[in-house]
């Protein structure tokens, strides 16, 4: 569980069944287990009106566990980018009464939240639960490029190559943590690189 350091640093809860007419779950990798755990206390029939969109991790696990919950639909997708048009379509056609549940890595939660915010769902109205890797999605504040799956501190920008301090300063709008040049005064100064977000 990520600790709260500054106000923009997101904190996540545990998924819980909300009143609603339709339930849309978006999860990646071990995020599936958050849904399975939530199902233990969900009211009977809860999954009849549920759709689960799942991006399996490299191990390909958990699809069967989600299917066992017997939701109205399980949709496995290879990546977040590949399911984006479909997700936008679903939200565009949705009505009030749809509840959103996001679980898995911060990158997945953040990007799904970004789309849902644009569709008019308040971030406080979404259920979130962090599971799995602590890897961060980072925006370089200098070149604005996004680097996915950052696990080290500092980290190198995959676009401009600057060495960046990965801050806890988070942008919901960009769904990314901010990375700021760590050695702007003297680029030859290279601080030790640590595995900070395993």
């Amino acid at each position, binding site marked *: 569980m990520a600790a709260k350091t500054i106000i923009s640093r997101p904190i996540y809860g545990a998924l819980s069944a909300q009143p609603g007419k339709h339930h849309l779950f978006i999860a990646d990798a071990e995020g599936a287990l958050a849904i399975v755990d939530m199902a233990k206390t969900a009211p009977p029939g809860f999954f009849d009106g549920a759709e689960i969109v799942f991006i399996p991790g490299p191990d390909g696990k958990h699809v069967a566990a989600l299917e066992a919950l017997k939701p109205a639909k399980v949709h496995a997708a290879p990546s977040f980018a590949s399911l984006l048009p479909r997700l936008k379509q679903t939200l565009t056609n949705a009505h*009030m*009464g749809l509840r959103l549940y996001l679980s898995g890595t911060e990158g997945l939660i953040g990007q799904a939240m970004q789309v849902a915010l644009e569709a*008019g769902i*308040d971030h406080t109205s979404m259920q979130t639960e962090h599971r799995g890797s602590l890897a961060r999605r980072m925006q370089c504040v200098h070149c604005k490029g996004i680097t996915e799956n950052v696990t080290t501190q500092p980290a190198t920008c995959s676009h401009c190559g600057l060495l960046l301090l990965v801050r806890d300063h988070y942008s919901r709008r960009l769904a990314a943590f901010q990375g700021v040049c760590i050695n702007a005064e003297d680029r030859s100064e290279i601080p030790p690189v640590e595995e900070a977000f395993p």
Partner: protein
Amino acid sequence: MSTGTTKLDVVVSDVVPVNELVTRFHFRRRDGGLLPTFSGGAHVVVEMRDGERTRLNPYSLMGSPLDTREYTISVRRDDVGRGGSLFMHRSVKPGLEMVISYPVNLFSLDLRAKKHLMLAGGIGITPFMAQTAQLAGEGGNFELHYTCRTASLGTYADVLQQRYNRRIRLYHDDREERIDLDRLLSTQPLGTHLYVCGPAGMINWVRDRAASLGWPPETVHYEHFAAPQPGLPFDVTLAVSGKTIHVGEQQSLLEAIEAAGVDPPYLCRGGVCGQCETNVISSDGKFIHNDHWLSEEDHRSGCKIMPCVSRFEGKSLVLER
């Protein structure tokens, strides 16, 4: 005193009967200048100097926020109330100089909404007059469902229909027309916010159905000014100012505190805003909580009271005031 607000010296520029129960009052600044900007849903507290007695009642501003040359309020006459509306109807004439508070908005639009769904009951229509004018000016997406007892008591229904045509839906109690609430709430596009203003029963019904149908609390906005209810008189000790006061049958606790020369903060005087929240030091008796501010837990604890609308019955009450 009203927190963070300055008073406005105004003159009544017009008094217009709207129907058998409702009269509209227009206020302009005495110095002829523009009034402060406000947003749809805002209210002002009107000071009514009625002989010895001063009443302070909140009323929603119903004019367009785009026009601050005047403020307008509509007052429904309540023949069995505490007398504020009767005073307005009987004693307030064009040319009368009055004092009102700066506008305060506890029922504002959430402008991030994709659509605004408004439900009004009776005189609860007034904040929506300003909100619809504000949204129409910005090309906003709204729909208003308005329930009234009869067509002749459908205050401003004609004006609204003329202005906004099919965005306005009317329901008349005497024609047995009822909102199909579940259907209405289930067919709104994602990103809709709900606003409800009307009698307490209506607000509770709408909030309850919206919650059951999966509307997150952040999307449900409501305003209900609880008028202070009369009740048995009681005595209160104000520990900080060292005074013992008597609260009359028709008086609110807040009014009695003010009459004793103590100036607690307030904004809405209707149990909504939380400004006048007061700690209870000791009590022996029963609280009659009428506010929408404190949690149920606070109500049960007997440690806090909202003096604008709540009362007390019993032997003794000591407040930190």
